[in-house]
């Protein structure tokens, strides 16, 4: 009945791993063809795959795990999806109803341990409830501010002996759940007035624009107003990065021009962003002269850290299209002279310290610089790949140097910062986009957290390209130790214990390539991406001493306080 409900919900793939409490469900999977199952090697990977499947398509990812250890292994992935508001349904087997509470074999209180990291959860009591619960779970996961939903299913509930008249509900109504849709018209008018009166505006957008399918509308709005636009780490691709109005990413490792423009702005339009501490730096010093318009579907995100002058609760696409319509209706336009002066100022900042006009890293070095690897990947893939990443310096370099023009192409764990996310995420994307180029940019630290999935790639022919920026260190940790702990590298080095990744890849039946020289970089990358139907593991030896810049000065810094290199700061 469960699998039938999933089929009727339109579920195409389940990412999962079997075990005792889930065996009735697995048997049902075996006896049908509509819903396909991908067997991972660790439940964490199943959650990341489903998560990235969702991020890259907008559909809800589905996970199936068994009780106890299966469920607990899924926790990291659920938390990852929760922090980034990704719709996902996780079905966990549970011990038989009559054993619950008795510390039965492989019993864990899944509803309890997942409670703080889910949007909602269900425990199925009777088989007859399954269709409605499944319907509700997908509805809750995908509407409003999306998020993961857990369905805990005791084994007896899925016993094939239990038959019930089956009907999959067309629609559900939950009386206690009415997600916001349209924004308040009066507030939207106020916001438009404020935008039209701005002299130093910045449009700052986050994952909500990507998730809320509003990239197109945002682009229209930015271009109509000719305002500068910056994206958060989660929002990259929400606005075309190669457009001249794009300032790059903002925040801790944001560009000089984005952070500085934010600091000096007089009006900020924040859309689907949440003023995360990795963006704002010290909240009390955040953008001292700015009036803030904040559009978000989640009322609890508004004025949580930074108080909004014009709060607008609503779906970002609906609010943006109302804003556009209002601006198109009126003849009023922002003060052209002021905007021109603002652009002049921004372009001057951009020339001074921007990342793209000329390289900000040492190009005379013998060693391969991680920045140039990302630039080369960008060039070789023509800026059109799906790129997932793990967590660390390589992630920040990718966010800075791979310039995303389209939404849903950049897939990373922003909120939780989960090492191990990258490879399964790339696989999840590849499942959804069989012919697309999917790259996982990773570090030799992160990749080892889910490396077992190389085997899953073999089983399901998922030809992802793994680009390992091998700096032989937990680079981001090392960078902080350089900057804050006088280079005392406590447990951020491996003492020659790294595996031979080439042999490892080959052991799983894949292609391994190592790059040690700058000159070979481009050619090797071309070779790698030409191998369309193979998994390629590229182990690229990069300069260990490189740091990610710009970097916010913290604690107590403002948006504009940044280190620009090892020797310069603002």
């Amino acid at each position, binding site marked *: 009945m469960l699998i039938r409900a999933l089929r009727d919900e339109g579920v195409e793939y389940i990412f999962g791993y079997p075990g005792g409490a889930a065996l009735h469900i697995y048997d049902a999977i075996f006896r049908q063809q509509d819903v396909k199952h991908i067997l991972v090697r660790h439940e964490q990977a199943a959650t990341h795959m489903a998560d990235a499947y969702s991020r890259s398509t907008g559909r809800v990812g589905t996970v199936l795990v068994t009780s106890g250890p299966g469920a607990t292994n899924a926790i990291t992935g659920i938390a990852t999806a929760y922090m980034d508001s990704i719709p996902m349904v996780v079905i966990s087997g549970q011990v038989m109803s009559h054993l619950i509470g008795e510390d039965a074999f492989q019993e864990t209180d899944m509803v309890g341990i997942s409670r703080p990291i889910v949007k909602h959860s269900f425990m199925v009591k009777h088989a007859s409830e399954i269709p409605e619960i499944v319907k509700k779970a997908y509805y809750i996961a995908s509407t409003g501010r999306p998020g993961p939903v857990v369905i805990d299913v005791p084994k007896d509930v899925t016993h094939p002996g239990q038959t019930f008249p089956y009907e999959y509900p067309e629609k559900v109504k*939950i009386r206690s759940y009415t997600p916001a849709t349209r924004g308040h018209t009066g507030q939207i008018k106020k916001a438009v007035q404020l935008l039209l009166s701005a002299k130093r505006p910045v449009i700052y957008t986050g994952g909500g624009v990507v998730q809320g399918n509003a990239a197109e509308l945002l682009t229209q709005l930015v271009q109509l107003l000719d305002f500068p636009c910056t994206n958060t780490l989660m929002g990259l691709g929400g606005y075309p990065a190669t457009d001249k109005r794009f300032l790059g990413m903002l925040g801790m490792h944001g560009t000089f021009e984005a952070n500085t423009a934010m600091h000096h702005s007089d009006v900020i339009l924040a859309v689907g962003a949440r003023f995360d501490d990795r963006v704002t730096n010290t909240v009390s010093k955040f953008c001292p002269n700015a009036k803030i318009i904040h559009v978000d579907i989640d*009322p609890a995100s508004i*004025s949580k850290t930074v108080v909004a002058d014009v709060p607008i609760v609503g779906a970002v696409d609906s609010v943006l299209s109302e804003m556009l319509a209002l601006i198109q209706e009126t003849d009023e336009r922002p003060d052209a002279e002021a905007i021109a002066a603002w652009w002049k100022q921004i372009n001057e900042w951009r020339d001074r310290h921007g990342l793209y006009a000329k390289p900000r890293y040492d190009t005379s070095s013998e060693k391969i610089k991680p920045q140039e690897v990302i630039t080369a990947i960008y060039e070789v893939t023509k800026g059109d790949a799906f790129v997932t990443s793990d967590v660390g310096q390589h992630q920040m370099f990718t966010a800075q140097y791979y310039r995303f023009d389209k939404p849903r192409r950049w897939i990373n764990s922003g909120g939780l910062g989960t090492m191990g996310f990258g490879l399964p995420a790339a696989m999840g994307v590849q499942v959804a986009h069989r012919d697309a180029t999917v790259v996982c940019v990773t570090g030799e630290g992160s990749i080892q957290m889910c490396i077992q999935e190389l085997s899953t790639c073999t089983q399901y022919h998922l030809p992802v390209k793994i680009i390992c920026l091998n700096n032989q260190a937990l680079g981001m940790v090392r960078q902080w130790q350089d900057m804050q702990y006088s280079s005392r590298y406590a447990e951020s080095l491996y003492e020659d214990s790294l595996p031979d990744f080439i042999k490892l890849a080959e052991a799983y039946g894949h292609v391994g390539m190592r790059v040690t020289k700058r000159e070979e970089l481009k050619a090797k990358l071309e070779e790698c991406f030409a191998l369309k139907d193979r998994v390629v593991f590229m182990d690229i030896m990069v300069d260990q001493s490189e740091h990610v810049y710009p970097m916010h000065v913290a604690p107590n810094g403002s948006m504009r306080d940044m280190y620009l290199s090892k020797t310069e700061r603002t």
Partner: protein
Amino acid sequence: MRRIISVLMENAPGALSRVVGLFSQRGYNIESLTVAPTEDPTLSRLTLTTLGDEHKIEQITKHLNKLIDVVKLVDLTEGAHIERELMLVKVKAAGAQRAEVKRCVDIFRGQIVDVTSSLYIIQITGTSDKLDAFLQAVGDAAILEVVRTGVSGISRGEKVLSL
């Protein structure tokens, strides 16, 4: 400031733990909490008192509202309302103390609901302040055990918290 937040929620398993979990997860404090079904058996009414500035209370109510099981809620302290708490107190009542305690109970309009030769059990209702005042009046030395229900409240006049 002390606030009384009254929540109408689904009478569903796990609903209460989500509310309580929210408070511990986000570092909000709960001073008192009471919960019981309403005239509609599918709904529970939960009343909690908490301390916090305007900003914190706004966050608390927003996050409570986000919980799927929460149907509606109101901050009773925003308008005219009635609040009550019930308390049972076991006190020493021997010799001269006996009359003294009895007098106190009368002043606070409590009731003595159980008696032995050496103690009283007193029932008293009112605002939390009143109950505090009673305990102070009786004095720590005489008090053996205190059980309070926590605050419940309802808004005055026409305003109704319902579906």
